């Protein structure tokens, strides 16, 4: 079987009907672009959620024992952790529920008490400040809130708000900073106050809701958590990979949704390719017979029509790749606004996205060519010569 001649014939066939060929290439390109955008969107979400979650959390997170609300003996645990060679920094947090009031508006909030200096060394939450300043250890009467809270309650830097704690205590605070964390559950209602201030108001001492640990090497977290478990005689400890497990689970769901959307758009492209090539086979029945009569084998004829599908697939994929790249880059800088999360969702273009979309489209286009190519292969010479 002569592949060069098959390609020669297939190329001529594709070029003969320029308009129809252009239509198919656009259909395939549209499918590819769609796939790139869908995968790019999932990739963007995955990247944002994972990165943001990692930036506001530790490499290892210590939780209270089962059935407990707090971790006791915080300071002694901090000392023990400080003795471990791989531990770079530690930041305890206290978490309560509360209510934030400003003018006529009150909203339930999640109060997160932090030690600002330790937090600076352990997490990258300081990078999430979009207005004002991050807290210092000395800041007793100032707090930070999330961007979403500030928008919902129309609070700006310097405004005075009232924070009501879960024990009924209420105190006036000045807004020092506004954060955009990129973690939906925190962005919805996060209020950050000083750790000592929270201890004082809640009347508690030497306990924490979580202890965030920064390691010298993040990638040993899964193994190193067992060292910490042993050191603290405490088993409720998670690595960052376990911590973002819920995100990965949510992303898997999004990926499945993305696959469904990609499948639907590709199906349209595949059907276009299949129908057009099939019509071509039917229209050229007599020509196929002549081709066989003058010495072309069945496998040659099969290859010709499969190559036509491949040409449509390759040209459509290349066009779709370019359009998808441009669209992805555009939505990276002009993200969609999500009115539910009140946040922007951007796409993220990666080579993997391009590779996945291109592979899926090319395979689909080739698959679309198989049925008409098989029909062409099976045509009997004499019957085709009898056809009109």
């Amino acid at each position, binding site marked *: 079987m002569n592949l060069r*001649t098959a390609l*020669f014939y297939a190329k*001529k066939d594709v070029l*003969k009907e320029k308009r129809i060929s252009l239509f198919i290439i656009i259909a395939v390109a549209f499918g590819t672009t769609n796939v790139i955008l869908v995968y790019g969107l999932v990739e963007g979400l995955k990247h944002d959620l994972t990165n943001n979650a990692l930036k506001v959390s530790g490499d290892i997170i210590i939780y209270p024992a089962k059935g407990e609300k707090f971790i006791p003996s915080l300071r002694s645990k901090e000392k023990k952790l400080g003795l471990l060679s791989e531990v770079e920094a530690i930041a305890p947090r206290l978490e309560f529920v509360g209510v934030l009031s400003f003018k006529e508006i009150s909203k339930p909030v999640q109060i997160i008490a932090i030690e600002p200096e330790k937090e600076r060394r352990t997490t990258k939450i300081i990078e999430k400040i979009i207005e004002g300043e991050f807290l210092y250890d000395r800041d007793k009467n100032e707090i930070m809130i999330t961007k979403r809270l500030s928008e919902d309650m129309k609070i700006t830097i310097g405004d005075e708000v009232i924070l009501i704690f879960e024990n009924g205590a209420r105190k006036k605070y000045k807004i020092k900073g506004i954060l955009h964390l990129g973690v939906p559950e925190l962005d919805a209602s996060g209020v950050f106050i000083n750790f000592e201030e929270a201890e004082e108001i809640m009347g508690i001492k030497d306990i924490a809701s979580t202890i965030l640990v920064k390691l010298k090497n993040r990638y040993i977290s899964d193994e190193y958590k067992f060292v910490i478990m042993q050191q603290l005689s405490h088993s409720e400890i998670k690595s960052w990979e376990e911590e973002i497990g819920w995100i990965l689970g949510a992303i898997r769901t999004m990926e499945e949704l993305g696959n469904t959307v990609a499948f639907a758009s590709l199906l349209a492209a595949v059907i276009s390719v299949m129908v057009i090539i099939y019509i071509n086979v039917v229209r050229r029945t007599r*020509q196929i017979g002549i081709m066989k009569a003058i*010495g072309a*084998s069945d496998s040659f004829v099969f290859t010709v029509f499969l190559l036509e599908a491949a040409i449509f697939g390759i040209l459509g994929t290349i066009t779709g790749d370019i359009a998808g790249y441009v669209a992805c880059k555009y939505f990276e800088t002009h993200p969609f606004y999500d009115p539910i999360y009140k946040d922007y969702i951007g796409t993220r273009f990666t080579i993997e996205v391009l590779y996945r979309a291109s592979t899926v489209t090319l395979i689909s286009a080739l698959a679309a060519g198989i049925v008409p190519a098989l029909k062409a292969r099976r045509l009997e*010479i004499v019957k085709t010569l009898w056809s009109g």
Partner: protein
Amino acid sequence: MTLIKTTKLKKVYMLGKIEVIALRGISIEIERGEFVAIMGHSGSGKSTLLNLIGLLDSPSGGSIYIQGVDTTKISEKQKVNFRLHKIGFVFQFFNLFDQLTAIENVMFPMMLTGKKIEICRKRAEKLLERVGLGDKINRLPSELSGGEQQRVAIARALVNNPSILLADEPTGNLDTKNSLKIVQLLRELNEEKGLTILMVTHEKELGEMADRIIKLKDGIVIET
């Protein structure tokens, strides 16, 4: 020397549940270099005989020997090779590939053999020159007259230098003047190259230009 020999060749078609006997045991011999016209009324079995000799169809019984090889016993792959290298076809409706130019149409069967494009192009140019179309090699079939298209088809049939040329009503779609020119061209090729030609026709005048006429009626030879 006998080039083609058929013995008790039979062909039965099924049209739904009805059995149609197209050939009822044809035994003929064609010598190398002969120009033979196969004549007969519509439905006499002329084209069926040509299709069987050209290995486009399989017989229901009997044998076909080409250069001493019983082609009823060879594999499909060998049949394809026979069609490609030993047999050239010219059809009534020209049947050129409309997306290919004249020269590309002629080159195509040679390209199927795997020869280099340049060699195919030179050979095709030479053949188109021979059939009088040297100045129209880059025209599409739609830009050529019926007679010119049939000349391209003849050049295409000859490109792989076959020993047999099978022509099924090659003038069926041409006017008298062009018909005579085409059969004259076939005659010349037969004499120049010693090409064995089997031509199906129902026009007596054209048949008489051949060395010999085989007449068929109802699937049997009535005159040879």
